[in-house]
């Protein structure tokens, strides 16, 4: 079951890689694979059990898979130090502003939809 799901995931990733080279060089293969798989799920209206099992098993260990790339930061200490204030300030300010804006916008849109529904 697990292997069958994994095979599908690998297959979609490889398909994505092929399409990336052939048609869409600006998109990474795995992302095209993601969109393709999502499209197939939408068309079929459901997800097979092997695929669900493989996806949830793999995604449970996603943080682990991200450790080796994150360790790469040790190679860029100088670049970070050079721009440390720009990084800190832009991370904090843009986070605070976009967090507040997202919450406010979503709530305003939900209320508007609710009012419209009441009227009709």
């Amino acid at each position, binding site marked *: 079951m697990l292997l069958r799901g994994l095979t599908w995931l690998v297959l979609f990733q490889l398909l994505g890689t092929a399409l990336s080279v052939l048609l869409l060089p600006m*998109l990474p293969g795995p992302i095209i694979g993601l969109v393709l798989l999502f499209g197939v799920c939408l068309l079929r209206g459901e997800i097979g059990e092997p695929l669900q099992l493989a996806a949830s098993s793999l995604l449970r260990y996603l943080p682990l898979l991200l450790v080796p790339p994150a*360790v790469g930061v040790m190679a860029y200490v100088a670049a970070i130090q050079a721009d440390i204030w720009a990084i800190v300030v832009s*991370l904090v300010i843009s986070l605070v502003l976009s967090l507040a804006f997202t919450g406010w*916008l979503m709530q305003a*849109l*939900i209320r508007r939809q609710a009012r419209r529904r009441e009227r009709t």
Partner: protein
Amino acid sequence: MSLLDWQGAWQAVIGHPLFGVGITLASYQLACLAYERTRWVFLQPVLVSMVLVIAVLLLCGIEYADYRRASELLTVLLGPATVALAVPLFLNMRRIRELFWPTVLTLVLAGSVATALGVLFAWLMGAEPLIVTTLAPKSVTSPIAMLVAEQLGGVAALAAVFVMLTGVLGAIIGPELLRRCRVQHPAARGMALGLTAHAVGTAQALQEGDECGAFAALAMSLMGVMTAVFLPLAVSLFF
């Protein structure tokens, strides 16, 4: 006991291809244990294991390039894991039928604002182009952010760190900030946490309740896909 070749054994161990995988596995489990014991938002497993692995590498005098080659066994799985994100995205789709337009509009508007603000402030503060492009996908879950950063000419490893910092910060200040802005609707709170603070924000949103958590997960995956698809396109159009 001078017959035993301690030096040789030590070199053989740290030079073994599995050494990199071994320290990664061990550090990650230690980090998870520390997080489960303390439940401290600062102790994000990826961040803590990163620090542990770097410490071991420095102690053993191993270069990053060698470690990366040794840990390929793990990183090669990032591709299929990214494809696997389609599954939770699809499972969440059912929930948004009710609030389809608010969700889509918020995603497009607020998602673009979140990305643009980060880039804008970094640029205004005079950061290097390398840092600016790496900051662009900071609101997105790390696998996508790392792929996108690399695609844009930034640094995948740095993107992972920015993503983590954004997520942890968002989870810490998010709930209080939203309360002060009088955002009470659970879907709106979840949307804000998931869209700006990805997985860490989603974990925080799940503690507030089911609806909040579901919308956070939805916002996180939608924002991830939108960034992955449109950010490289936007950049290739403008530059």
